[in-house]
């Protein structure tokens, strides 16, 4: 290609949004709308951070989420003051909302980096516009997930005993405990996700630095950009590094959630002691993470008018991934029941039946509806092309996934081997405050993210556009 590419601003850009992205359902490839140029990409995406006046809905949502974040930290502070007795858990149910929340959040965290890394490795161009916020989702959810194992300890101020460090107590971690593996897994995943995210952000921070008008924004983004100037040699290394980190991230994701599965599988509690747990947990994690990515994608697309970057095709592909993962998960449920029966172990069989018709049966059937039945609507093409229906389904899925973890964790403990040791778990107001507060804090972080960090990778959008222009 030798002709100069069109490089004009598209002044009527907002009016053309969405229209271009509709009717092109047939081709597998995702195309940016033809009205876009390198300049308009930078203008549109950096404009959300730099020039767009704060929308009213943002202020309201931010106030609400700030209040919920205070609830979260207030509940944790009271916990530190009073102890885990403020929660409803007690022998025999010693893991309840705390570990349910932990597994739920870490599962949501699993797919963000996975989506972005796996789609990058398989050269799926549609990953480009969802990878940035999916990675942000991972980091925020992981940061919140990491709080729960710490606060579930009786003496949370000793959490650092999990780390092997020289100490005068001759104390070493129990290396063969999955809880110690968890420590290393979360540490590795959090740091790798942060590096993966930040590496992709450096060139975008440079764009913000160069386009910012206010001195404080120039200094802040200038420091974050580390002096990035887009030199060809730097790009070469940057690209290689991005590929390597993506390649490292994919097996890491699988290992991290497998370790979470092993937290349960290594115990001999009926309903937990099963080799299916690691892959079953990985499938569940992908499922709920894809659903959360869908929730956020639909909201961002609507809020910032991003229909020409996050097209119907993106939502359609994401919906198909959710459907596929949902089927894997449904298969796991069936296998879990089958293996309980096949083991001929009376405790395993009882636990399986107790889940379906014991005191927590409503939770079991609600989760089956949320996780197995409702996602079947995604077979329909019409559903996959209705963003608000997808939004609703993705919320239902994540409610279902929370119930699933609750069911798995609580029903196994509440009736194990000896009927004399049976008991029930009922949540207290502090259990609920911690759960609801954690969701508020997650949304609070996301709200800050969309106002201060470009929520779509401008670099990758420019690459996509260059490929399109080169190929046409």
């Amino acid at each position, binding site marked *: *290609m030798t002709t*100069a*590419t069109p*490089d004009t601003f598209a002044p009527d850009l907002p009016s053309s949004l969405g229209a271009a992205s509709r009717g092109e359902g047939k081709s597998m490839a995702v195309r940016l709308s033809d009205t876009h140029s*390198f*300049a308009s990409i*930078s203008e549109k995406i*950096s404009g959300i951070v730099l020039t767009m006046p704060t929308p009213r809905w943002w202020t309201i949502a931010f106030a609400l989420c700030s209040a919920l974040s205070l609830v979260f930290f207030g509940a944790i502070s009271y916990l530190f003051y009073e102890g885990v007795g403020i929660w409803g858990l007690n022998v025999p149910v010693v893991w309840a909302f705390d570990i349910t929340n932990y597994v739920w959040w870490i599962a949501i965290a699993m797919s963000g980096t996975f989506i972005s890394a796996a789609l990058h490795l398989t050269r799926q161009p549609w990953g480009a516009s969802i990878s940035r916020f999916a990675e942000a989702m991972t980091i925020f959810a992981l940061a919140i997930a990491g709080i729960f194992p710490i606060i579930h300890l009786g003496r949370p101020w000793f959490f650092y005993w999990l780390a*092997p460090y020289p100490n005068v107590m*001759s104390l*070493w971690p129990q*290396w*063969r405990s*999955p809880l110690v*593996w968890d420590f*290393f897994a979360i540490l*590795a*995943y959090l*740091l*790798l996700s942060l*590096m*993966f995210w930040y*590496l992709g952000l450096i*060139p975008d921070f*440079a*764009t913000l*630095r*160069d*386009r910012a008008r206010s001195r404080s924004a120039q200094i802040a983004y200038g*420091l974050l950009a*580390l*002096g*990035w*100037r*887009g*030199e*060809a*040699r*730097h*790009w*070469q*290394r*940057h690209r*290689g*590094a991005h590929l*390597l*980190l993506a390649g*490292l991230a994919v*097996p*890491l994701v699988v*290992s991290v959630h497998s*370790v979470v599965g*092993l937290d349960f599988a290594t115990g001999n509690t009926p309903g937990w002691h099963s080799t299916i747990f690691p892959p079953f947990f990985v499938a569940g994690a992908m499922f709920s993470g894809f659903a959360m990515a869908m929730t956020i994608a639909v909201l961002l697309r609507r809020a910032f008018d991003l229909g020409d970057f996050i097209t119907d095709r993106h939502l359609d592909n994401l919906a198909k991934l959710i459907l596929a993962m949902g089927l894997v998960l449904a298969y796991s449920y069936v296998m879990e029941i089958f293996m309980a029966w096949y083991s001929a172990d009376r405790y395993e069989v009882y636990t399986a039946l107790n889940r379906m018709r014991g005191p927590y049966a409503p939770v079991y059937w609600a989760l089956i509806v949320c996780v197995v039945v409702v996602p079947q609507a995604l077979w329909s093409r019409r559903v996959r092309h209705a963003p608000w229906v997808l939004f609703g389904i993705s919320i239902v899925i994540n409610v279902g996934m929370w119930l699933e973890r609750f069911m798995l964790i609580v029903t196994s403990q509440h009736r194990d081997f000896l009927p004399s040791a049976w008991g029930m778990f009922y949540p207290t107001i502090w259990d609920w405050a911690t759960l609801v507060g954690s969701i508020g804090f997650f949304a609070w972080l996301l709200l800050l993210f969309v106002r201060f960090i470009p929520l779509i990778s*401008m*670099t*990758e959008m*420019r*690459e996509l556009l*260059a490929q399109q222009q*080169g190929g046409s």
Partner: protein
Amino acid sequence: MNASQQPYGLIAEFSSPAALLAAARSAHGAGYRRIEAYAPMPVEGLAEALEFHDHAISMLALAGGIVGGIGTFALQWFSVTVDYPLNIGGRTPAWPGLIPSTFEMTVLGAALAVFLGTLLRSGLPQLYHPVFNEPSFSAASSDRFFLCIEATDARFDLQQTRGFLEQLQPVKVSDVSA
């Protein structure tokens, strides 16, 4: 800028990645070696046009992975056999239980090496660079493409090099003060 002072180099601005790629190839073909090409995104073939190869990052990843993996395994082994021997049925704890942490730290070691290696080998963070003195360079992170020939190049001559760059049909050519 002091008029007698030697500039950092000459910089030509282009409006498309293809034009920059063609210009980089011409400049390299004309014998210039101290050339820098700037783009708002990776341009396929640009690094090759400048004859740039850096395979060190993947080697660093390997080294980081080995250090992380062997280090973590050795630490655990030392802990359960030397520093605080555990005798379980007459044996030290079986090694498979030490593998998950070893795996996680292998990946983390490799990732840290990649991340730090990429930045440090590119000389980043480096907040000041002479090309930032060119006012129009702020578009290099958005929609413009630049080719800079440094004054330290053996073939650099202010007039001749400017003439050479002009003939590549850039948007404009400017001096970059040191």
